[in-house]
């Protein structure tokens, strides 16, 4: 090595400029795949939503006749159209499903994280085993729970009715109004470990001195939780809310594997509705319009979320 060391700062810009194309080469493969599988098809999906695209015009593909906003009008406003009710039913089911799944996952995940954020014999084993439900694939979750939900021979009713007598009658889980709970509960069960994991990491990163100082000042466990733990967890709650809502609103596998292409009016979610109209009923343009509306709803959600949690984003 030469004795004369070049000053560092002047070298850097030179190196940067010489390799200014390197980052573009580095992102090129990812960009290419995203362009051809995400971006262009998503634009294509929007274009199809403006077309009269069904079984009869399928051969023309993107040459199908324009339809203006008719697809949107028929599902949003046209109350004579049977799909109008189907759409709004699926939309409200999705809202209910998303609310309970996200609320249950976050509240339950935080509660379990608080339990596991203590000293205890075997705590490492407990923390690891608690993750298992998250690893079980969605479709296995769905077949397993639909087996457990069976009215006569399913283990849920056996436990609730035969063994513990919590309920006096055998509820029917896989038909009628209970179907919503039949998909919400397994979804929460599968989501809890991830929420727990994230909250636990957040709890362990919290400075212990704050809690000790507050305890010395006479703050009880609840007040410490309310005024120290929870505010410090806000960024984590924000991130999980954002992705939890989107992920739940786009849920497809669990209702489909449990109930098939038509989960019935009480558990039909937006995604099952869209896929059924598009592929079983060949109403491609209409399905594309419903997809666009679903995405718009999520954009609105992101905007609301951003307004509510902008403060927390600046902190992190």
């Amino acid at each position: 090595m030469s004795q004369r060391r070049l000053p560092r700062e002047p070298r850097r810009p030179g190196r940067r400029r010489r390799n200014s194309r390197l980052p573009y080469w580095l992102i090129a493969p990812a960009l290419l795949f995203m362009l051809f599988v995400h971006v262009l098809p998503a634009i294509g999906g929007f274009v199809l939503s403006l077309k009269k695209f069904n079984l009869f015009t399928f051969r023309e593909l993107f040459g199908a006749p324009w339809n203006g906003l008719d697809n949107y009008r028929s599902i949003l406003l046209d109350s004579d159209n049977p799909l109008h009710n189907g759409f709004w039913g699926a939309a409200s089911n999705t809202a209910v499903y998303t609310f309970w799944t996200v609320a249950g996952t976050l509240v339950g995940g935080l509660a379990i994280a608080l339990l596991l954020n203590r000293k205890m014999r075997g705590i490492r084993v407990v923390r690891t085993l608690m993750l298992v439900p998250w690893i079980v694939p969605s479709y296995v979750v769905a077949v397993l729970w639909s087996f457990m939900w069976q009215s006569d021979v399913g283990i849920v009713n056996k436990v609730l009715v035969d063994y513990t007598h919590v309920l006096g009658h055998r509820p029917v889980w896989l038909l009628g109004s209970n179907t919503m709970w039949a998909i919400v509960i397994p979804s929460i069960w599968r989501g809890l470990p991830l929420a727990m994991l994230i909250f636990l990491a957040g709890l362990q990163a919290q400075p212990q001195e704050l809690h000790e100082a507050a305890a010395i000042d006479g703050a009880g466990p609840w007040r410490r939780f309310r005024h120290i733990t929870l505010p410090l967890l806000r960024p984590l709650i924000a991130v999980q809310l954002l992705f939890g809502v989107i992920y739940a609103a786009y849920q497809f596998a669990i209702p489909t594997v449990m109930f098939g292409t038509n989960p019935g009016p009480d558990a039909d979610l937006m995604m099952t509705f869209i896929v059924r109209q598009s592929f079983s009923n060949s109403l491609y343009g209409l399905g594309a319009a419903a997809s666009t509306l679903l995405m718009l709803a999520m954009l609105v959600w992101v905007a609301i979320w951003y307004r509510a949690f902008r403060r927390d984003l600046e902190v992190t």
Partner: protein
Amino acid sequence: MTAIALSPRTRKRLINRGLDVLTWLVLALMLAPVFWLVASSLQNDGQLARGSYDLLHPTFQAFRDMWKTIDFERYFVNSAIICTVAALLATAFASTAGYALARFRFRGARPFGLAVIGTQLVPGSMFLLPVFIGFLWLKQNVGIQLYDTRVGMIIVYTAFFTPVAIYFMRSFFQGIPRDLEEAAQVDGCTPFWAFVRIVLPNAAPGLMATFVYAFLFAWDELLFVAALTEHNAETLPLGIRLFIGNYSQYYGQLMAAGVISTIPVVLAFFAAQRWLVRGITAGAVKG
């Protein structure tokens, strides 16, 4: 009721023991469905249909029969190949893109980062049909068959799980000190070779975690494989439902198939557990 006088220390210890018991109860409740999956897979179909269980006399009959009832092997092999290759490709592309985002300031970095998140905002149903049409178009005009092929599914899954993997890799690269590459570059390495020779080996745990993360998600995918395959490239989520059709009620075999479908992801998860947990929580805690 009279309040029993307990010293604060005894009270605290009692509460702690109570919480310990509660912790184990919650764990038992969380694992109960998994236990039930395994226990049911060890029963015969007749017992399960009647709802009578004999947990003391397990049988592996269902694990033997399930391969004959349906062509389960085809689904399993397809899942294994498609998900492994797609996760490998996604990890490779994400490692370069994640490195670019972590280390370089370049024009378009911010839009690219936003676009990566933006992909998560588009519902799969929105681009499912155009992808399908694209497959048809390629077949008609270029003669490349992608519909119902493993290659087609690998392309789609690679694109799907690359965005999440990019964020994963980026946070791993941010944890690697810059001095390493700078030292290598002073020694005459070009930035690209510094990345390949110095940074990547140091990011091996991150690569492993990203691969497993992408693999877990790919293993779970149903929507696209349902629409873009009809026989040759069908994967596990499509195969598993055939055990309970109109004429068949093979619950024991269904549960056995569920166990078999879960084993690869459990193995992958525990092989990379430490780094996977670090990747998930690092991304989350930093926001």
